[in-house]
């Protein structure tokens, strides 16, 4: 008897057409929505109505449509910036899963600046100072993990993960400790409660009719362009991808790998910290858990987009529509809660990964003659 081959085996496709990949992704999203539709129908919810409300995010026919758009932007901007920043690190094969911690540290130092300087500095300057403080605060927090990796070869995945929790409890300590030195809290409240930022520390908005355009959206879109250029058209961007592909090649080519890692991770974490700062000045008040899980969701977005800058823009948009749209649509249905968005997100990711597999590989049946034996 000959060695029996399995019925199917996997063969890599020689050609890779971008068109096919795009088609696969669109199919994946549609399939995920179809799975969601079945789940909705099982719970007695008309799927088409639900999806229509979800995709329009309840904006048409609502009392204050512009406010829904403003809220959408508040969710979208942090996710977009964090995903872009994480992609920088991932491109270098540095597994920065510390987005949550870096975001919190950025938010914390931005809040620190707002409470200390908010009365002194005028508005646009204050928002800039907050962004700067957030960037430095987040950046140094990320640099810590990178330095340990470069110097001692520590595992950055574990380190950044654990630093997330340290940041979270650090912030919670300030949120829950009522004491005279704690200038973050409202002195008039008997219970610990964050005080609002002075007016100067509120995000700059441009009124367009009743709608207020949050300037952080403009900043985030500008960042998209800058990062695209940085990664694709600069020497430093090229260094990132060489280090990512093979640190030894990079070394052989005379690149100083340690420095590149430190520089890139500082940049990545600083951008995340800046997103935290933007989020704080948009909120106008500190929060004990300000992240809305962007440090995690950002990883999903970055990989859904395969670290491609334009793809990140699209994926971040899609995920935000899902999350915000689900919340709006589910408000009217007792059976559906906001967790449905997480479920859809999981299904989409799962099917996209499967589709990705089939665009790069194909299944081949074992040859006919052998099958007869």
């Amino acid at each position, binding site marked *: 008897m000959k060695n029996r081959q399995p019925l199917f085996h996997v063969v890599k496709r020689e050609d890779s057409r971008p068109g096919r990949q795009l*088609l*696969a992704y*669109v*199919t994946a999203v*549609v*399939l995920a*929505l*179809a799975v969601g*539709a079945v789940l909705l129908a099982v719970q007695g919810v*008309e799927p*088409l*109505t639900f*999806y*229509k409300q979800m995709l329009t995010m*309840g904006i048409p026919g*609502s*009392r*204050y*449509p512009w*406010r*829904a758009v403003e*809220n959408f932007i*508040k*969710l979208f901007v942090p996710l977009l910036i964090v995903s872009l920043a994480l992609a920088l690190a991932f491109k270098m094969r540095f597994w920065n899963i510390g987005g949550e911690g870096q975001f919190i540290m950025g938010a914390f130092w931005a809040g620190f600046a707002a409470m200390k300087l908010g009365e002194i500095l005028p508005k646009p300057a204050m928002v800039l100072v907050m962004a700067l403080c957030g960037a430095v605060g987040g950046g140094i927090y990320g640099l810590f993990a990178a330095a340990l990796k470069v110097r001692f070869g520590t595992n950055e995945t574990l380190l950044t993960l654990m630093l997330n929790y340290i940041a979270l409890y650090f912030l919670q300590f300030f*949120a829950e*400790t*009522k*004491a*005279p030195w704690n200038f973050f809290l409202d002195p008039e409240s*008997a*219970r610990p*409660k*964050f005080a*609002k930022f002075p007016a100067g520390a509120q995000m700059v908005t441009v009124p367009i009719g009743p709608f207020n355009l949050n300037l952080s959206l403009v900043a985030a879109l500008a960042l998209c362009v800058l990062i695209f250029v940085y990664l694709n058209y600069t020497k430093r961007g090229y260094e990132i991808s060489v280090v990512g592909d093979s640190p030894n090649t990079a070394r052989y080519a005379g690149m100083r790998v340690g420095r590149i890692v430190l520089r890139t991770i500082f940049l990545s974490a600083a951008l995340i910290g800046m997103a935290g700062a933007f*989020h704080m000045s948009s*909120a*106008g*008040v500190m*929060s*004990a*858990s*300000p992240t*809305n899980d962007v440090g995690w969701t950002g990883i999903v977005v970055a990989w859904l987009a395969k670290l491609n800058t334009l793809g990140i823009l699209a994926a971040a948009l899609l995920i935000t529509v899902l999350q*915000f749209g689900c*919340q*709006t649509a*589910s*408000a*009217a249905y*007792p*059976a559906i*809660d*906001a*967790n449905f968005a997480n479920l859809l997100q999981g299904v989409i990711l799962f099917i996209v990964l499967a589709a990705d597999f089939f665009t790069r590989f*194909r*299944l*081949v*049946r074992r*040859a*006919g003659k052998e099958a007869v034996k």
Partner: protein
Amino acid sequence: MKKILALALAAAMSLSLAACGGSGNPDGSSANNPGSAGKPNTDVSTPVDSKSDFKVGAVYITSQNDTAGYTFQHHSGITAAMKALGLDPADLIVVDNVPDNDDTAVATAIDTVVNQGADIVFGISFGYINAMAEKAETYPDVIFSHGTGYMANDTNFNNYFGRIYQARYLAGIAAGMKSAELGNNSIGYVAAYNRQYAETCSGINAFALGAQSANPDAVVHVNVIDTWGDEAKEKQAAQALIDAYNCCVISQHCDSAQPQLVAAQNNVFGCGYNSDMTEQAPGAHMTSAIWHWNVYYQTAIQAAMDCNGDASKFVEKMGGNAYYAGLAEGFVDASPLNESVAAPNTKAVMDAVRNLIISGEWDVFSGVKLSYNISDDGKVEIIKTDAPLMSDGYELKDGKVVEMANPEIVPAGGPSVDDGVIKGSMNYNVAGVIEG
């Protein structure tokens, strides 16, 4: 072969695409159908008048589909109130799983509820306070009502909470009588927090005073777990109280029924919180301090509907911007006594004190102490004695426990402390309470 397979795969993919596309197209064309199909549901009810136009909205900290716990209690209260007022609970607009320590998330949730047309928005968690206050200003045409908070305005924004300490006093009586029966003065109390929150320390104090009214030598040992709910910690804390102090009754201010289950396992007794926990621990649980949230929600929704669209009249219709009701209004109570485990005559004493509190003649934190004379035929006589209300001598100031200048809270015979103290500034334990 390979080509055929590739073709088949491609065909399958494009078919599935077409199929999905097919289901996608009707989306647009039949968009009107689901809407019109949905309408008859509301049309079945009585002709549209201003009442059925009225929309109730809520922001919850956990899921509206919970089957127990804090959100569940509020959700049940709101839906019960809506039914009683002829509104369809299915029309309730809810955003749930909204964390109470993220102001942006809360503000967004409130915007969503308002955008969907809510005329009154209930926020149930203390941490929603900043966002509720801010949105009440942003939307003067919508009514905002914040549970457990203290902020309000004179028009469209109030807060609500209840005199749960009165119910805890009643539960304390059951605990005190049980400890007197057993001849064991040690009573345990698993508390989320103690002096940090007036809500928690007023509950501990009221429970202790109730226990002391039935057993003057009773001591309440408090074990603080630093969270409103964590089943593992609640369980450990209750077990520690039994192991360390040989407590014969376990009371609690935390979310789950774990302390009662621990009491049952150790063959001691217990007083629960939030819901009647006799179901979970039938051999141990005596009575719980419980809320009837629907009492408030019905009052508030009725007042809001009476505003006839002018949200600014809400506070006036409610007769004030801080709703604070107790036993008299039926907002709080002790759950039906589990007489198979409680000491004899407990029910009669609790009923007598309940009536005394409802009558308004006496309240818990006053300079008059109660004790009971029980005749052989089970008749209860309440004896009132003038005695100062004493603290244990310590208070929490700026995060530190310091000695109090004057441990006497109320002089003998004096009136009850202000509601503001019970709701906001109480930061001490009464004598007979020991933390740790």
